[in-house]
C-alpha cells in the first residue's frame, strides 16, 4: 500500500464529488438557503402590512354592561396600546429561550404597528339573531361592512356554574376574517366580562392577580460537576437524535457516492487503466477515504451550524467527548457501509443492477431513523441497550445513547465500539475481495451467491 497513491486517489474522489454543481447546490447551498428562508420569513412576518381592516362589530348584549365598554376597548388608541404590550410580552417570553429572536417574535402575534379600525354597534336586545347574522353574510365583501356579530348570554356576568358548561358568548364572523381581528374582538369582550364578574363579586381584580400568580422559574438541573443549568427535558433527547442524524446522513451520502463512482469507473472502463498504476486495495482505500472526507465536510457544515445554534440560542454546551464519540462512531459506521457499497459498485455494470444488492444495506441505514425515536425517549431501556450492540446499527444507536440525558456506562460504550470495529473489519475484508474480482467482471450482474463465491475465490 503506497500512501501517496492512496492520497491521490482519495483527492480525486473528493474533488470530483465536491467540486460539482450538484454537490455545491445540494450540500453547501441548501443550509445557506434554509437560513436565508428562515430569516426571510421572519422579516416578512415582522414587516407584514396587511390591507387595513375596517368594519363594524355588532353586539347583542342582554347584560347591558359589556357593549358600552367594548367600543372603548376597540378604539384605535386602545388597540395600539394593547398590540404594543402584547409584542413586548412575547419578546420577553422568547428571550428566555432564544436570546435575540425578536424578529420571529414579531411575526407570532398581531403586529405592533398594524391594527384594524373597528366600530362597535350595539343592537337592541330583542333583535332577530338570524337577520343580524344574515347581515354579516351580505356585507362580507363590503368595505366598512359588518365584520362580526357577538351574542352574549343574559347570564354571562354570573360565574360559570359547576358541572355544566354555559356558553357566555357566541361569535359569528364573515368568511376568512383575519384571525388576529377575531382574537382582538374576542379577547376584548372576554376581558370586559371577567372584569364585570370581579366587580359584581366585590373582588379587587389586581389583588386577585397578586394572589393567584406564583412564580417558580424553570427547573434547574444539578449536574455532576457541581454546577446547575436549565433543564432542557425532552429537548436534550432531540439533540441526541440530531447527533445521530449528523453521522447517519454523511454515511448515507458517502456510501451513495461510492456506489455511483465505482459504477462509473467500471462502466467507463477506466478502472483497468487505474489498476495499471495502483493495486485494487489502494484504489478502494483511496476511494473510501476520499468519500469519508466528503462525509466529514457535510458533517462539518451541518454540525457546525447545529452546534453554533445550540450554543448561541440555547446557551447549551456540547461536550468535546460527545463530538469525539461521534467521530469514532462515524468512522466505524462509515467504513462498514462504504466498503460494502464500493464492493457492490465494483461488481455491477450499471446502477439499475445494484438495486437488488443494496437493499440489505439500505434497510440497516433506515432502521436508526425509526428506532432512534424510541431510544431517544428512553435511552437506557433494555431495547435501547440491546440495539446499541447489534451490528451494523450499533454505532448509530450507541451515539444516540451517548448524547442523551442519561449516558450509558463506559463499558457499554466500549463494547459497542469493539463490536462495531469487528463488524467494520469483516466488512472491509470481504469488500476488498469482492472489489478486486468485481472490478474486471463484465456481463451478467452478480447476485449474493456470486459475491460469496468471489470472496472465497479471491
Amino acid at each position, binding site marked *: 500500500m503506497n500512501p501517496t497513491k492512496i492520497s*491521490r486517489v482519495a483527492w480525486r474522489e473528493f474533488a*470530483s464529488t465536491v467540486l460539482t454543481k450538484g454537490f455545491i447546490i445540494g450540500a453547501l447551498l441548501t443550509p445557506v438557503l434554509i437560513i436565508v428562508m428562515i430569516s426571510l420569513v421572519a422579516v416578512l412576518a415582522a414587516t407584514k402590512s396587511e390591507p387595513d381592516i375596517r368594519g363594524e362589530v355588532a353586539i347583542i348584549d342582554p347584560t347591558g354592561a359589556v357593549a358600552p365598554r367594548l367600543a372603548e376597548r376597540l378604539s384605535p388608541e386602545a388597540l395600539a396600546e394593547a398590540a404594543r404590550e402584547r409584542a413586548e410580552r412575547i419578546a420577553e417570553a422568547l428571550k428566555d429561550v432564544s436570546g435575540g429572536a425578536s424578529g420571529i417574535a414579531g411575526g407570532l402575534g398581531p403586529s405592533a404597528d398594524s391594527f384594524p379600525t373597528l366600530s362597535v354597534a350595539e343592537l337592541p336586545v330583542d333583535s332577530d339573531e338570524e337577520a343580524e347574522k344574515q347581515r354579516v353574510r351580505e356585507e362580507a365583501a363590503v368595505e366598512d361592512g359588518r365584520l362580526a356579530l357577538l351574542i352574549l348570554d343574559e347570564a354571562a356576568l354570573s360565574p360559570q356554574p359547576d358541572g355544566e358548561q354555559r356558553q357566555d358568548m357566541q361569535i359569528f364572523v364573515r368568511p376568512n376574517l383575519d384571525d388576529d381581528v377575531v382574537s382582538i374582538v374576542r379577547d376584548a369582550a372576554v376581558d370586559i366580562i371577567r372584569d364585570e364578574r370581579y366587580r359584581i363579586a366585590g373582588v379587587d381584580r389586581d389583588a386577585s392577580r397578586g394572589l393567584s400568580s406564583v412564580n417558580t422559574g424553570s427547573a434547574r438541573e444539578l449536574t455532576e460537576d457541581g454546577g446547575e443549568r436549565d433543564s432542557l427535558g425532552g429537548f436534550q433527547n432531540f439533540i441526541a437524535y440530531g447527533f445521530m442524524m449528523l453521522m447517519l446522513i454523511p454515511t448515507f451520502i458517502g456510501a451513495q457516492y461510492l456506489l455511483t463512482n465505482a459504477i462509473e469507473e467500471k462502466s467507463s472502463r477506466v478502472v483497468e487503466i487505474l489498476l495499471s498504476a495502483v493495486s485494487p486495495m489502494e484504489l478502494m482505500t483511496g476511494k473510501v477515504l476520499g468519500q469519508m472526507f466528503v462525509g466529514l465536510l457535510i458533517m462539518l457544515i451541518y454540525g457546525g451550524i447545529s452546534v453554533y445554534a445550540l450554543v448561541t440560542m440555547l446557551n447549551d454546551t456540547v461536550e468535546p467527548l460527545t463530538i469525539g464519540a461521534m467521530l469514532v462512531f462515524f468512522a466505524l459506521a462509515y467504513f462498514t457501509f462504504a466498503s460494502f457499497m464500493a464492493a457492490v459498485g465494483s461488481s455491477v455494470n450499471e446502477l439499475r443492477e445494484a438495486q437488488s444488492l443494496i437493499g440489505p444495506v439500505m434497510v440497516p441505514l433506515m432502521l436508526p431513523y425509526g428506532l432512534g425515536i424510541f431510544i431517544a425517549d428512553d435511552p437506557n431501556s433494555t431495547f435501547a441497550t440491546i440495539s446499541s450492540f447489534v451490528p451494523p446499527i450499533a454505532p448509530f444507536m450507541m451515539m444516540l445513547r451517548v448524547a442523551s440525558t442519561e449516558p450509558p456506562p463506559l463499558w457499554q460504550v466500549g463494547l459497542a465500539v469493539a463490536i462495531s470495529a469487528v463488524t467494520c473489519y469483516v466488512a472491509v475484508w470481504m469488500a476488498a475481495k469482492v472489489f478486486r474480482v468485481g472490478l474486471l*467482471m463484465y456481463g*451478467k450482474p452478480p447476485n449474493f451467491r456470486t459475491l460469496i463465491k468471489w470472496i472465497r475465490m479471491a
Partner: protein
Amino acid sequence: MSDDAIFIQGLGKRFGAKIAVEDLDLVVPRGSLHGLIGPNGAGKTTTIRMVMSILFPDAGRLSVLGKKSAVESKDRIGYLPEERGVYRKMKVGAFLSHMAGLKGVTSNVSKKIDDWLERVELPDVKKKRCDELSKGMQQKIQFISSVIHEPELLILDEPFSGLDPVNMRLLRDLILEQHTKGVTVIFSTHVMIQAEQLCDHIVMIESGQKVLDNTLQEIRDRYDPKSIVFEPDAGVGPSPAERHAGVESVRQVSPGVFEAALHDDADRHAVMASVLEQTRARRVELRRPTLEDVFIEIVEQRSGGDVDRDELRAQLQDPAVGADTSEVTP
C-alpha cells in the same frame, strides 16, 4: 530471480471450470519487441493481467523487471489494457496529470502532457472534457497515460483495436520509437498481420497454451509452405501441374489466381522459371507464410485436422471482432 523483463514459468489460471491459461512458460528479454498473438479467448489478456498483478495465478511463478510481482515495479511499467476508458467528465489535462501522479511522475507533468499531446496530433484537447473526444482520440490519450512516466516495460493489450488506418500507423510509429529507445515492448493482438508488421519475436497462444515462441524469421523458415502463386494472363489457363517437375498439385485460390504446392525436395526457382517459360503470367511469386497460415497449421496439427479454416481465418483478420468486450466468467 531472472533479470529478464518478464519471466514466466508454469503459469496457470482457471475461472471456475474454464481453464484460461495452462502451464505457460515465457521469457521476454529486456529490450525486445514481443507480439503475443492468438484468437479471442485464447488467454492473452488473462496472461497480461497476471503479469500486471491484476489477477493472481493459481499455479506457476513469474517475475517482472526482476521483481516478484508487478506491484513492486508498477511505476516502471506502462500498461494499456484492452478494457480501457477515461473519466468521461474529467478534462484531458487533469486526467493525464492524475494518471501521471499515480505513476509517480512529479516533475514537469504539464510540459510532458503538452509534448505528448503534440506528438499524437491532439494539441488542442488539454482543456476539453474526455467525453468530447472521439473513441480513437480517447485511445491516444490512454496510450499517453501508459507512457507518460517513461516506463522500462510497455505492455499493450490490443492497442490497435478501434483505430483508423492513419492512427494505426501513428501508433505503430510511436511503439517502434519506444522500442528503439530501449523499452521492452510486449503487445497482444488477434490480428496477425499487425504482429507481422511490428514484432521481431512472436508468442502464439491458443486455448490457454503456448503453441509457438520464436523470432519471426525462424517461424517463416520453419513454416515455409513451399508453394508458388501465379496469375496467368486473362484467357490463359494454368499449365497442367504435371508439366512442371516438382509440382505436387495446383489449386485455384481466387478467380484467376493459382497456387502450386511443391514437393519437399523441389527446386523452387527452377519451378518458377519453368512456369514462366510455359505460361504468360502477370505474377509469379514464392509464397511467404503468413502468421495466419502458421497459426492455422498449428491449430490443425493440434486438433488432428478438425478445424474450420475459414472461420478461424475470419477471426484472425476482422478487427471488428476485437472490439468485443472480453468476458471473464468465473
